[in-house]
């Protein structure tokens, strides 16, 4: 893999306890407006240096191929890497605890009062802010790969399949993942 502009020169934490995992993911869960991925990446890569940029993307990609909510899978994988089964349990519990309570409380309010016009525009504005976060995350995840044309072509295909052709995510992953791995295989020979 010569010439791949991978930034692996960050300092990476080597000791992360189950307690750190629980508290780190608890913070991510509480902050995670509009989806958790941007906040998880921020905490894991930028604030606590648990994983390098590239390691995070690698792990996320692997978790995307497995069924289930991606970010929940990421918490299990990172928890296991640093602290085994207990770490996995600590990370996933930390991630889910606060949001579960908050969403349940909101569900009760909804059951009692329904929604109002004002809430509709709150949701829309929160959504707009969340879109910026996810956009920033896409940019950061893409940065180590922008100078590899084959990677950008596959990324563009995935984007077009979802945005323009509205393919279900399942098919996009099942079709593009093997093709892309085969391409990476050819290039590596």
């Amino acid at each position, binding site marked *: 893999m010569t010439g791949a502009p991978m930034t692996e020169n960050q300092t990476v934490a080597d000791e992360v306890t189950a307690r750190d995992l629980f508290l780190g993911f608890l913070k991510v869960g509480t902050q995670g407006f509009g989806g958790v991925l941007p906040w998880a990446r921020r905490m894991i890569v930028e604030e606590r240096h648990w994983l390098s940029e590239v390691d995070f993307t690698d792990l996320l*990609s692997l978790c995307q191929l497995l069924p*289930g909510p991606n970010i929940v899978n990421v918490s299990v*994988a990172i928890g*296991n890497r640093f602290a085994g089964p207990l770490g996995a349990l600590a990370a*996933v519990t930390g991630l889910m605890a606060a949001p579960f309570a908050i969403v349940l409380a909101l569900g009760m309010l909804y059951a009692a009062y329904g929604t109002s016009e004002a809430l509709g525009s709150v949701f829309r504005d929160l959504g707009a802010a969340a879109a910026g976060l996810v*956009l920033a995350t896409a940019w950061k995840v893409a940065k180590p790969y922008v100078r590899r044309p084959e*990677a950008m072509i596959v990324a*563009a295909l995935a984007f077009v399949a979802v945005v323009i052709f509205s393919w279900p995510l399942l098919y996009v992953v099942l079709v*593009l993942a093997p093709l892309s791995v085969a391409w*990476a295989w050819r290039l590596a020979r």
Partner: protein
Amino acid sequence: MKPDVLGVLMRHFVLLSLVAIGGANAVVPEMHRLAVEVEHWMTDRQFAELFALANAAPGPNVLMVCLIGFQAAGIAGAVVATLAMCGPSCLLTYFAVRRWEKSRNERLKKIVQRGLAPVTIGLIAASAFLLARAAVHDWLGAALTAGTFVLMTATRYNPLWLFGVAAVLGLLGIS
């Protein structure tokens, strides 16, 4: 509430958990079919409103299942639905990742990951675009999107406070 609702919730979401490749959003249409058309736990409109609620609240968007469970069978339903949706996939991930990290074939691992990463990049970019398209209707929405993007990429400030601004603006009905 019929006593077997919890069992029905469990059965539906254990299955969904194991087919949700690509994430929880991949099975939202199937959740809709089950909750609205098959089990009649809620109306079409309730589903849309609860989905907006799950997305606006902090935390993984998979918590939509918590709301479906609550609507179907109260707090017990919320707990059962969430555990059923997350449990099986977590276990699978746990064993798959352990196996993956034990594997010594570094070259193969590298190739697989270099192949998968671009798909992930494209999917994240696509979800950003779809989120923006759904939420940005005016200059204020566009400014919020641009604002969080800049805060996140160019500064070390926590973008959380912009969400506060967004919520207040929405409440005041300015946008």
